[in-house]
């Protein structure tokens, strides 16, 4: 059973809609991630939050807006999406390293949210 929970499992939205994907973890992890995965492709990193601060934005279009309200929650706000944005969106989490020390913490994924933009 995954300890990273994503809602909703499926979302259909129009190009003018505003919606959000939500992610929650209770593993005490302080790093959280959003990945986008198209069919038959590996996941692509979108955003990373470390200690509730945005640490990586992989040049994602502004129609995707992440938010980390606290250490357990991660949201992805969606607005004015295009049909090509239809994909599986995976949330993930990991232990966060200590500043000044190198680490390689395992990343754990949720079940994903299927997004269809019509």
């Amino acid at each position, binding site marked *: 059973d995954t300890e990273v929970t994503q809602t909703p499992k499926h979302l259909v939205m129009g190009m003018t809609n505003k919606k959000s994907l939500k992610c929650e973890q209770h593993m005490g992890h302080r790093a959280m991630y959003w990945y986008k995965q198209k069919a038959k492709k*590996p996941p692509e990193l979108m955003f*990373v939050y470390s200690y509730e601060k945005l640490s990586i934005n992989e040049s994602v279009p502004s129609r995707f807006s992440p938010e980390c309200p606290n250490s357990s929650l991660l949201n992805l706000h969606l607005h004015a999406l295009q049909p090509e944005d239809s994909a599986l969106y995976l949330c*993930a989490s990991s232990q966060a390293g200590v500043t000044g020390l190198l680490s390689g913490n395992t990343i754990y*994924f949720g079940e994903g949210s*299927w997004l269809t933009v019509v």
Partner: protein
Amino acid sequence: AQTVTQSQPEMSVQEAETVTLSCTYDTSESNYYLFWYKQPPSRQMILVIRQEAYKQQNATENRFSVNFQKAAKSFSLKISDSQLGDTAMYFCAFMKPSQGGSEKLVFGKGTKLTVNP
């Protein structure tokens, strides 16, 4: 930049048999981490196994084991006693150490494994 190559787009195996999935990577780093993730049709990415490059001993996890050859930059996954539930896409992934928790995985393109009854 690191790259990960999985040369077998698709493989199949009979139930109860053994199968090996190959993965090679390219890096100039001396310390790094390697992973195999499994993604069944349900699409959840599930960690199968993790290997630290500084460890010479190959990681094992029940029926799953790896053959880590650091000099050859090879990291194959062996699945013993294959079960129908092993049917999935398998991704090999590389991670170099980072500071502050901004871990980045570099994925291969995946190998689709089908276990036949």
